[in-house]
């Protein structure tokens, strides 16, 4: 089973928080959820919305077409009415509101709405008529009178009571689903904590409970294991903390900063020996972020930074220094819509090739990309182990689509991490930081342990500047050899995920993996069996395994959130095999299950390239 729900409202009206409250309520009732936030680069006023998929099985994607549209403002109704399949909740006092007075609606969207309604000056009443014609169940609510009675009953200002309007919409949603309102009350308590706020919202729930609302979806509470609800930035932060992170630097940037602020809020970590402390530094820019992280790593601390495209661009020289000096540092790359400022609050996979080539010169850059929240957490740990074993920067890609989306995961996942620190020096006399060895790895000592030299110049084994050509040739090869070693040692099975076994291969990476997983049963029903290959490590690339998996496939389809099919290009470069057809999306919105299913139909009918555009 699957139910898709969407709530919207002006940025700053609590849509974000309230969607999290709703997700928690549903999760408490035993269901799996997957939610996604879409918002403008704006603090107050612009239209933001949150989608939530509900299922009795683990779920990884949202749909463009939704079962329940939950609204309390006019703009959400105008923006999303065409996506509703079953039920729409709306404020009955807004019937006369005209689209043409909503100045925040972008012109292209307004034009689209007008053409859908076939009306140049549509009102909410026209939207309602449209929905009636489509046999959508309508739930008109007098939100104002409810909030007024909340204000009266509790003797609070109407401004404060007005903030409960999204809670009212949630309570109605719960009743449509057939779930007990006590789950909502518990979730409100978890999220708001402050007693006054909890009481006011509780009152709003009670009022909503008095309304005549039918149980349409008939959900029952189901047994569940111990679960948590978290978003991608928190998953990454938890992975880093478990991995022993000691230093994290960042410069404020969407959507990366949430990870750093979470770590700072939890910087005193309980350990078996007491506590340990993580320094979180907000720097003056991303140049300082990467270079302070590299500096901290030289002291033996597990060190990282987190950023998005513009910041990553600024970090490239520092990453090159880290490569030259064999510094284990982790850069969490929250990928968003680019180039330039691009779509600062939207998602994208357009920087894969950039991540693979960041920084001048040749040096081992290990690049991994997570496909869901569980992977974000586990890969954050993996990144440190690889960085320290191969003494080189590791770039961990997490798209905005994963950063700001949230899901339920089993608690047991968060047991103690396996920690591999690589080869450490034990003899500090006449220490050579860059000692030549067969496999290129020199035992690592930390600043303070030995007399150590580092330089961005080519250097000798001590780390002193050395431009002599034989040394240059040898030292260069020593650095590059580590990538060969990583390629030999890291199992190819760990560098990708394979799902299903069919005669059609689908190549993907990052967040589209989850969407593909969600549509695989539907594809199977249509007799389409796919082998889903999700690449997780792009350098070193799992060449042999991908080659084997692609053998004898009748069709290879590439699915990515970019224009250039970058992962497929990398694959072609690495193993000489490319895709036969492409499903691509670069609108900044994540790929959705229903549009992807439709795209498969078109590809199987012979389309070589399908471009997706779903979502507001």
């Amino acid at each position, binding site marked *: 089973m699957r139910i898709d729900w969407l709530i919207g409202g002006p940025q700053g009206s609590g849509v974000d928080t309230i969607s999290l409250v709703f997700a*928690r309520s549903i999760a*408490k009732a035993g269901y799996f959820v997957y939610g996604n936030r879409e918002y403008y680069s704006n603090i107050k006023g612009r239209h933001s919305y949150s989608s939530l998929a509900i299922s009795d099985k683990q779920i990884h994607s949202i749909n463009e077409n939704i079962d329940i549209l939950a609204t309390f403002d006019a703009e959400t109704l105008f923006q999303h009415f065409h996506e509703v399949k079953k039920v729409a909740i709306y404020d009955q006092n807004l019937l006369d509101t005209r689209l043409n007075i909503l100045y925040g609606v972008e012109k292209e969207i307004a034009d689209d709405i007008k053409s859908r309604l076939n009306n140049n000056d549509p009102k909410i009443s026209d939207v309602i008529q449209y929905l009636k014609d489509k046999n959508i169940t309508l739930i008109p609510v007098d939100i104002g009178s409810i909030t007024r009675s909340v204000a009266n009953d509790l003797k609070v200002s109407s401004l404060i009571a007005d903030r409960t309007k999204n809670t009212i919409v949630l309570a109605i949603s719960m009743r449509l689903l057939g779930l007990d309102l006590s789950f909502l009350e518990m979730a409100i308590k978890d999220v708001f904590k402050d007693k006054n706020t909890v009481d006011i919202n509780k009152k709003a729930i009670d009022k909503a409970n008095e309304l005549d609302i039918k149980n349409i979806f008939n959900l029952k509470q189901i047994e569940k294991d111990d*679960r*948590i609800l*978290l978003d991608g930035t*928190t998953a990454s932060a*938890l992975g880093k*903390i*478990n*991995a*022993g992170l*000691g*230093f994290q630097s960042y410069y404020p940037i969407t959507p990366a900063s949430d990870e750093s602020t979470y770590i*700072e809020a939890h910087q*005193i*970590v*309980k*350990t*078996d*020996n*007491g*506590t*340990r*402390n*993580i*320094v979180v*530094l907000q720097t*003056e820019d991303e*140049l*300082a*972020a990467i*270079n302070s*992280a*590299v*500096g*901290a790593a*030289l*002291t*033996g*601390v597990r*060190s990282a930074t987190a950023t998005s495209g513009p910041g990553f661009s600024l970090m490239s020289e*520092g990453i090159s220094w880290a490569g030259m000096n064999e510094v284990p540092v982790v850069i969490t790359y929250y990928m968003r819509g680019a180039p330039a400022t691009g779509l600062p609050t939207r998602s994208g996979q357009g920087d894969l090739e950039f991540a693979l080539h960041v920084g001048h010169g040749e040096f081992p850059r290990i690049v991994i990309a997570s496909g869901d929240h569980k992977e974000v957490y586990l890969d954050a740990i993996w990144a440190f182990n690889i960085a320290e074993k191969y003494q080189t920067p590791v770039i961990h890609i997490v798209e905005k689509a994963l950063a700001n989306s949230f899901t339920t995961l089993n*608690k047991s996942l968060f047991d*103690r*991490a*396996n*920690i*591999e*620190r690589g080869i450490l020096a034990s003899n500090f006399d*006449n220490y050579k930081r860059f000692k030549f060895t067969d496999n290129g790895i020199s035992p690592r000592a930390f*600043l*303070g342990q030995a*007399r*150590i*030299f*580092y*330089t*961005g110049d080519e250097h000798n084994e001590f780390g*002193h*500047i050395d431009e002599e050509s034989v040394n240059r040739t040898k030292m260069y090869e020593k650095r590059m050899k580590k990538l060969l070693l990583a390629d030999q040692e890291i199992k190819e099975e760990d560098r990708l995920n394979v799902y299903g076994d069919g005669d059609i291969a689908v190549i993907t990476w990052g967040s589209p993996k989850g969407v593909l997983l969600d549509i695989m049963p539907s594809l199977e029903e249509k007799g389409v069996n796919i082998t889903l290959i999700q690449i997780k490590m792009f350098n070193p690339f799992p060449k042999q395994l991908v080659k084997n998996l692609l053998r004898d496939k009748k069709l290879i389809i590439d699915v990515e959130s970019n224009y250039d099919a970058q992962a497929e290009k990398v694959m072609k470069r690495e193993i000489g095999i490319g895709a036969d057809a492409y499903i691509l999306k670069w609108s900044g919105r994540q790929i959705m299950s229903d549009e992807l299913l439709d795209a498969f139909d078109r590809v199987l009918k012979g389309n070589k390239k399908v471009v997706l555009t779903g979502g507001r």
Partner: protein
Amino acid sequence: MIEDLEFNDWCPGCGNFGILRAEEEALGELGLDYKNAIIVSGIGCSGKTPHFINVDISGVHTLHGRSIAFATGIKLANPSLKVILNVGDGDTLGIGLGHFVSAGRRNLSFVIMMHDNGVYGLTKGQASPTLPKGEKTKSLPKPNINAPINPISIAIAAGYSFVARAYAYDTQSTKEIIKEAILHKGSAFIDVLQPCPTYNDINTIDWYKERIYKLDIDPNVNNPSQRLEKIKQAIDIAYQEDKIGIGIVYKDLTIEPFEDRLLSNIPGYIQYYPAKTEISNNNRSISDLTSLIDELKV
């Protein structure tokens, strides 16, 4: 001599030799070595200092303009290390100015020794941010049309709690200033004036000889009420014409260093800083996420 010392390739007569001598003596007299101190440098002639220094100390030769960022990471991860930066004027006031100003805001304990010769030596003598307007040093095709940044003034404005001016060839007083800067709690900045015999044919040894004198002032701010007066005194010295006072210009003892500010967020920071604490036991994480996971439980 230490076997692995790099061949020193500075030009004969370079002011860096004087700075190096003063620094070696200061480190020696304070008993600093690789176990308790580190030299961080940027790019340019000064950047090579850690490779040339004849003290049993480690060195990190970083990127152009970024040494303060590296030093910040090193110091915060391991506050038991004394961190000394050898940086150039272009390094600090040109490409790295953002870091220089931000470091003043933090007041993290380290010493920034800025080798100030008015030119970009290693790229053959272009004008640096401290070269006065109208001057045409040897390799400039035209006179410099940019006004100079006043290093002392900008350091004071940025919030450095220790600001000094030294002269490369007065190794004795430079050494004393370095020692005092290293012992200072907070960010220390030393503008070390340095002749570049190869490219700066204006600010020569003789030019400095006519102008240098030792300051005889009390630079200390012992309580905040003295701050404005001492800043005024420092600014007067910063903008002196025809003479150049050498010594500590400003020393504010009332501004808490960044390490101490961190203590308000992390009370155990000084005892249990990141570089000192274990993260694993037999390859297993010792970090317990239980309370964090409980916060997220549904």
